């Protein structure tokens, strides 16, 4: 299994509603000073589009230029963060199905 089997997968809620597709995976480290041993999945970033998601505007507040930030945040205004604990099932290369009551929050932190 590789990360490519997860990126781009459709993300579907338990009642079959499509949230978007996986644009990134947040990984947890053991701590800032700890050596990198294994990196477990922490959360999924989900958006309806993939254009420009590698610029990071939809998940970070501080990055300019303002014009680009506005543009890409508008494209990804429905970008969501879903904790991996809320994932029910992952079919590699196809879909990720969420549990009922998974905590879906906006990807962009509050200002």
């Amino acid at each position: 299994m590789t990360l490519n089997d997860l990126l781009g997968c459709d993300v579907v809620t338990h009642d079959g509603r499509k949230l978007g597709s996986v644009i990134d995976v947040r990984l947890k480290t053991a701590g800032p000073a700890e050596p990198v041993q294994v990196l477990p999945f922490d959360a999924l970033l989900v958006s309806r589009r993939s254009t420009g998601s590698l610029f990071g505007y939809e998940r970070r507040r501080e990055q300019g230029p303002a014009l680009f930030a506005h543009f890409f945040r508008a494209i990804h205004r429905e970008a969501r963060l879903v904790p991996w604990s809320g994932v029910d099932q992952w079919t590699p290369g196809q879909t990720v199905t969420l549990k009922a009551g998974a905590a879906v929050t906006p990807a962009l932190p509050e200002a």
Partner: protein
Amino acid sequence: MKRLLGVMLGILTAIGGFVDIGDLVTNAVVGSRFGVSLAWVVVVGVVGICVFAEMSGRVAAVSGRGTFDLVRERLGPRAGLLNLLASVAVTLLTFIAEIGGIALALELVSGVNYLLIVPFAAFALWLILWRVKFVAMENVFGLAGLALVVFAVAVWQLGPDWEQLLHHATHPVVPFGEGHPTYWYYAIALFGAAMTPYEVFFFSSGGVEEKWRRKDLIEARMNVFLGFPLGGTLSLAIMTCAALVMLPRGIEVTTLGQVGLPVAVALGKIGIAFALVGFVAATFGAACETGLAVGYSVAQFYGWQWGKYVSPARASRFHLLILVSTLLAVAVLLTTVDPIKVTEYSVVFSAVALPLTYFPILVVANDPDYMGPSVNGRLANTLGVVYFFILTVAALAALPLMLITKAGQ
């Protein structure tokens, strides 16, 4: 004292290294057809290359990453690959034009047909890229390229009516007999010549090779902010020479020989001797830079070892790329395609390809993960966004204008 000398040397090589075959040809062609009515484009182009080079130099120094490392990281492998193919194609076209330019310059020196010179010039070039250190290469060709100052002396010697010249430059009108599409087509060509993408790949990769740190940024910025505008002045001098000597005689520049004739009018044989040294140095230097830029781009995209600070055996794929590009350039030139025509197309396609690398660099220069506290300030971002729009408009307009004007006929 030693540091000051280093800074001086850097600025001088930046001036001498600014002009390449694209600048020589395009500025002379434009001067002979449009006078100084397109001089403003050189100014816009020089400010643009300053903005772009400062940004990518800063990114290189702070993050230690070359341009195509970042292009792939920000665009992903698919869009990144298309970007790489387009950029490398344009850089290769420029590389071919530069080698052709060396051969044409040496033809003017020796009287030997340039096609016979091409293989020898290419071999000498490859040998330099194989053996000579980055800094030595840059300094020798940059300093010799300063011989092109002879064009500025020639303008002064021709004694133009400065007031009138300035008036024409600041109140541009399309000259009689030229259409508006042609005017704008050459505006884009001139812009592409001033802002050729390889300059930035080369500049930033050089920064990574020489292991720039934050403290080296001041020096790099001086090179950019003093060297490039002064180099741009040489471009303007070449244009003005053609405007003063060729335009009144109804001569449209189509060969490298014609580019130098105004210098002979103003300064005679000694002037031509300087101009020839300048032609050879400028094209040789730029051929080295474009050849390396091809290797840098592909190697950075795939994460291969690259650079001139290790022996060729430790960067085999990088050197294989350079070798293959050189052979390809020779093969193309030996089809007897006119190197001046190749040059004219290369500068226009440069303008088309520019936004592809400019945009990712602008984004990364704002990314705190890479840049920490050295992200773009307000000025860099304002200029950065303004130029993003200028570049995009120029890139989109270039090909339609090329078709409408039949490449500027």
